[in-house]
């Protein structure tokens, strides 16, 4: 077992972990103050549900063996057979070209956290208006029928990894961002628009929180992207610097588009641009040079800045622009690397493979997610009641309010009935 590489993956995993709460804050700051807790929880709960499902059977479905290129097998349920001494191959090789070995536990943890954040990403599209219980069930099922298979396709030895010209997806453009972005679209189409969409701007209630979330995402993304080499070599470093450069360029791309089009450099634009750059460089960053990274960044920033206004034209309420940023940015990065890939890889064949990767995931995920969301809507109900939505989903779904800055804070409340915690009262969730 290589200590350096295992250690690097473990620290990268910690960084990827912090992306999910980072996403929670990024999304949470963007909604109105009456639904921020629900937004936070939709991401945060993924750390609970998906972590547990991952070790129960997710790892096995994604990475144990292969069933027809589509999915793994169940040989490793409960991480059966893995102990502290188990190892898997890193992409780092020694002088003889032999792969370094890292602890399987480290690899599994790292991959687990990818599943966690992918599920969480979807939530931004359906902010403020779904039942929390339904969301919990949704993500449990979604990772099972969508994420685990798709991760297998791309990284687990599935069919996309077995094309003649294998898809380049260094850190998850297809498996994570296109996947979450198209799933978001499908769910939006099922649950429908927020009350007041297009009429009411529903502007962010706490922009510093959005910036903080962006910062945690950006920080964690170094682990996400560079860690995907599963160890430390020059490619790891290349991925890291490309991540920074593309993100910076995308921030500028978004801001410039916005300044020309709408007259202001907005904070939300800077944050969104950064995220768009991070998304676009994710599949590509290990296979392009600095100019490739700059180009991917600035294009992703400007194009996503334009793409977020599509929802107004086409009329789907992708509340926090998961489609506009993650789907569009993911597709851009995935396709652009087809041409920009260095080491002689870029070209028509590669582009074709990239397109196959992007569109097969889009097709599969859209259909399966739509069916899943629809089934939930028709059975237990996905959409919250209009009353709860108007008065604030936080109170309805979580029996809490996010802030209390009043000087008479405490006085506004008095213990229920005789004693606190007296009777369990059902709150719709």
């Amino acid at each position, binding site marked *: 077992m290589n200590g350096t590489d295992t250690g690097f993956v473990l620290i990268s995993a910690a960084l990827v972990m912090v992306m999910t709460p980072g996403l929670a804050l990024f999304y949470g700051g963007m909604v109105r103050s009456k639904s921020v807790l629900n937004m936070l929880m939709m991401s945060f709960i993924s750390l609970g549900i998906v972590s547990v499902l991952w070790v129960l059977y997710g790892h096995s479905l994604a990475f144990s063996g292969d069933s027809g290129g589509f999915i793994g097998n169940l040989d490793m349920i409960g991480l059966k057979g893995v102990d502290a001494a188990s190892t898997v191959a890193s992409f780092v090789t020694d002088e003889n070209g032999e792969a370094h070995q890292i602890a399987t536990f480290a690899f599994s943890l790292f991959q687990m956290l990818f599943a966690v954040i992918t599920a969480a990403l979807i939530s931004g599209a359906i902010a403020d208006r779904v039942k929390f219980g339904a969301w919990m069930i949704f993500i449990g099922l979604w990772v099972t029928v969508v994420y685990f298979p798709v991760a297998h396709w791309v990284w687990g030895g599935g069919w996309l990894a077995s094309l003649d010209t294998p898809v380049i997806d260094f850190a998850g453009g297809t498996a994570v961002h296109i996947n979450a972005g198209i799933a978001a679209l499908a769910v939006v189409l099922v649950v429908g628009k927020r009350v007041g969409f297009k009429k009411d701007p529903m502007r962010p209630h706490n922009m510093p929180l959005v910036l903080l979330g962006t910062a945690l995402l950006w920080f964690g993304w170094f682990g996400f992207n560079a860690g995907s080499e599963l160890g430390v070599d020059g490619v790891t470093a290349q991925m890291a610097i490309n991540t920074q450069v593309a993100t910076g360029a995308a921030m500028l791309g978004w801001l410039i588009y916005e300044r020309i089009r709408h007259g202001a450099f907005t904070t939300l634009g800077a944050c969104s641009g950064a995220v768009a750059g991070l998304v676009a460089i994710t599949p590509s960053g290990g296979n392009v040079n600095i100019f490739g990274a700059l180009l991917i960044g600035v294009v992703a920033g400007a194009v996503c800045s334009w793409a977020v206004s599509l929802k107004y034209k086409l009329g789907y309420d992708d509340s926090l622009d998961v489609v506009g940023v993650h789907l569009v940015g993911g597709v851009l990065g995935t396709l652009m690397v087809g041409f920009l890939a260095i080491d002689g890889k870029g070209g028509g064949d590669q582009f074709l493979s990239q397109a196959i990767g992007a569109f097969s995931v889009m097709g599969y995920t859209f259909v399966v997610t739509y069916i899943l969301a629809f089934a939930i809507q028709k059975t237990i109900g996905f959409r919250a009641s209009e009353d709860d939505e108007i008065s604030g989903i936080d109170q309805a779904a979580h029996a809490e*309010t996010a802030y209390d800055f009043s000087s008479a804070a405490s006085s506004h409340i008095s213990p*229920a009935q005789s004693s606190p*915690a007296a009777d369990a009262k059902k709150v719709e969730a």
Partner: protein
Amino acid sequence: MKLITAVVKPHRLDEIKEALQAFGVHGLTVTEASGYGRQRGHTEVYRGAEYTVDLVPKIRIEVLAEDDDAEQLIDVIVKAARTGKIGDGKVWSLPVETAVRVRTGERGPDAL
């Protein structure tokens, strides 16, 4: 002159503003408030304890109006604010002795 005060549900503010504008009133002052009445609050849960929060968020709107408009204005506001559910709020009017526009020092009806 009269001062009309309305304590209403926050999400009715837009309708009220539009209704007033349609009526020809172009100024108002808004304060965040909270209140209770027939509409009692809701239950919140913190660390295994349940509490009743009995103050519900409201919006408090003040409009200065000429004597002749006052009654009609009240009706306009009441109509725009109504959802028919408890907690819709109250509107009341007070007699104003004098009103001044700060910018110009104009008084009385001219100050509106």
